């Protein structure tokens, strides 16, 4: 994990900003909580006892390091060298647990007794309910009503793990509204509750803290790619982006290697011009959402536009402030894939490699044909989660 002195230009500055994005745009009711976290998070993360407990759990409980797998048949198809970072093999089935392990240890050290979280696809909710069971903390998860319907297996898992799943019934009844409800819950329970945000969004220090906990992805990629190929860095790293936590973890240790192309793939939903999309960078403008200055989909009047994607985990109208800065500065390339392209890519990976990806990760897979990577180049793509939760959607496409 990085110390402050090693901070890079694409990392957060001491005021909580990435370029012009970030900050802590929160009502006074949240200020003491966020301030407590801001004052303590680096001290806690850099404490050797924290680091040992965190890395022991990642190894023994999560199953890290996750493999970096050379996907031969996929590589053959796209005439390049594709490696999959297998976050789908993490305990609970997605990268989300890297963050929840870190945050639950943080919450314990801050003396918190209760946990609240939001979830979209349910992966973060499951990962939060899991660590709450592990550490014996009370867990409340807010989930949009629509997502509760389309991600039923994960709702059942959360309940079995002992979490209370509360439906968010306002607005679009998806991830954005679950996040609103979780924030309101935190306002109403300010003293003994920690809010485990699942992505690199929210007020400073959340985007930085979550990125640090997910940075283990790129730390491992570097070492594993070197062992596979002898190369220091790949030519491309690719990840899907909703809020952007797996992308932040995938990019983290490559941010300053300017020859590594950072490719983020957003959910275009039914298409960029369809009015039913979640491609924030393509369609959004700078503004404030969920506590940070970032890029968001909004009307001319500054009302947040309700997003649309087949993938509950990408169905979010904003993006983490670091990603906003990567997009605005040109360091990152932001592409998008439609619902149909993502489903197609999921079937392609399944049939070529015997791996059923999450719908979220399938968006990243969907742009391989457009990447233009050559035979000699190396592509690392983070497979952020497994597809079990999406079988209902996939089954509809099986002839």
């Amino acid at each position: 994990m990085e110390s402050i002195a090693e901070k890079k230009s694409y990392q957060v500055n001491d005021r909580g900003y990435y370029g012009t994005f970030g900050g802590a745009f929160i009502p006074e009711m949240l200020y003491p909580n966020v301030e407590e976290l801001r004052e303590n998070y680096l001290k806690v993360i850099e404490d050797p006892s924290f680091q040992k407990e965190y890395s022991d759990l990642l190894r023994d409980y999560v199953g890290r390091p996750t493999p970096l797998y050379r996907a031969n048949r996929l590589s053959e198809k796209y005439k390049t060298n594709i490696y999959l970072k297998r976050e789908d093999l993490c305990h609970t089935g997605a990268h989300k647990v890297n963050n929840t392990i870190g945050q639950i240890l943080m919450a314990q050290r801050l003396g918190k007794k209760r946990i609240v979280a939001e979830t979209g696809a349910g992966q973060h909710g499951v990962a939060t309910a899991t660590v709450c069971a592990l550490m014996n903390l009370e867990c409340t998860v807010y989930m949009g009503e629509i997502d509760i319907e389309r991600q039923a297996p994960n709702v059942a898992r959360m309940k079995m793990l002992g979490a209370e799943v509360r439906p968010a019934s306002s607005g679009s009844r998806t991830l954005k509204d679950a996040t609103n409800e979780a924030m309101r819950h935190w306002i109403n329970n300010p003293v003994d509750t920690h809010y485990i945000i699942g992505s690199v969004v929210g007020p400073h220090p959340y985007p930085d803290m979550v990125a640090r906990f997910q940075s283990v992805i790129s730390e491992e990629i570097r070492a594993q790619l070197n062992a596979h190929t002898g190369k220091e860095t790949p030519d491309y790293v690719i990840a899907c982006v909703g809020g952007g936590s797996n992308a932040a973890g995938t990019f983290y240790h490559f941010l300053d290697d300017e020859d590594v192309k950072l490719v983020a793939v957003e959910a275009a939903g039914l298409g960029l011009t369809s009015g039913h999309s979640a491609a924030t960078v393509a369609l959004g403008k700078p503004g404030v959402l969920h506590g940070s200055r970032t890029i968001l989909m909004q009307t001319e009047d500054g009302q947040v536009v309700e997003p649309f994607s087949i993938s509950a985990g990408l169905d979010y109208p904003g993006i983490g402030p670091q990603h906003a800065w990567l997009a605005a500065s040109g360091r990152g390339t932001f592409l998008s894939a439609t619902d149909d392209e993502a489903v197609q890519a999921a079937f392609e990976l399944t049939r070529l490699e015997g791996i059923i990806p999450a719908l979220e990760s399938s968006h990243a897979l969907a742009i391989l044909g457009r990447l233009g990577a050559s035979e000699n180049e190396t592509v690392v793509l983070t497979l952020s989660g497994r597809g079990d939760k999406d079988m209902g959607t996939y089954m509809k496409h099986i002839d």
Partner: protein
Amino acid sequence: MNRIVNLFQNSDKSSGGESSAGLTRPGLLNVYFTAGFPELNDTLRVLQALQEGGADLVEIGMPYSDPVADGETIQQSNDRALENGMSVRILFDQLQGMRETVSVPVLLMGYINPVLQYGIESFCAKCAEVGVDGLILPDMPMDVYLDEYKSIFDAHGLLNIFLVTPQTSEKRIRQIDEVSAGFIYTVSSASVTGSKSGVSGDMEAYFERLDAMNLRNPRLIGFGIKDHDTFVRASNHAAGAIIGSAFIRVLQESTDLENDIKSFVRSVKSSSEAIPA
């Protein structure tokens, strides 16, 4: 002079801490309502009726799609107003000429994103033009305000109202007092709007703690104020109090807007001569 500053200076004569006799001094009543609610063109009507009923100052809420600090009642009024087609632009149109009939101080309250999209500079200019006296933007960080916006607010004679809560540290309260003008919005309990009702003993202890700090600015207490009793109890510990969700509920149920508004405001303020200490 700014109408808010004026109001508190004039009421100071009758208010400054003389409640020891068991008599309640009349507090200032600040009422919140959402612009464009219940119907799009009700904004000015509601404002005028509030003034006629006896509200001392008024907060007009600019509806927002994602009001994280608000409970269900105000969320619903925001959604309804947006469905009605309300926007910042339309609000300024509706408030054009407001000062021909409205003399009470008027504040705009809302979330920062719609203000940023309108443009801070043009937003403040427009506020000054229609006669708005102050702004409450709960998710605008203090440092951003001081570094980037304060000079613009000042140039247009707009006060920025800060919030304090029971969790706000003494050090931060002092800091807020230092940079505030007009009044300090005292949030009575750790909650979103409209979720808790009443004034508890815990709250009174917190109000007394604030009282003992001898702050430069007067305070208005909000959250949990819903009727005459809670208004008077809050006013015992501050310059007055703020009603939001309870008033939105009146608007929701009203069949005769003008009369219902006036009689609600009167019922909150009236018979405020004495309640048992």
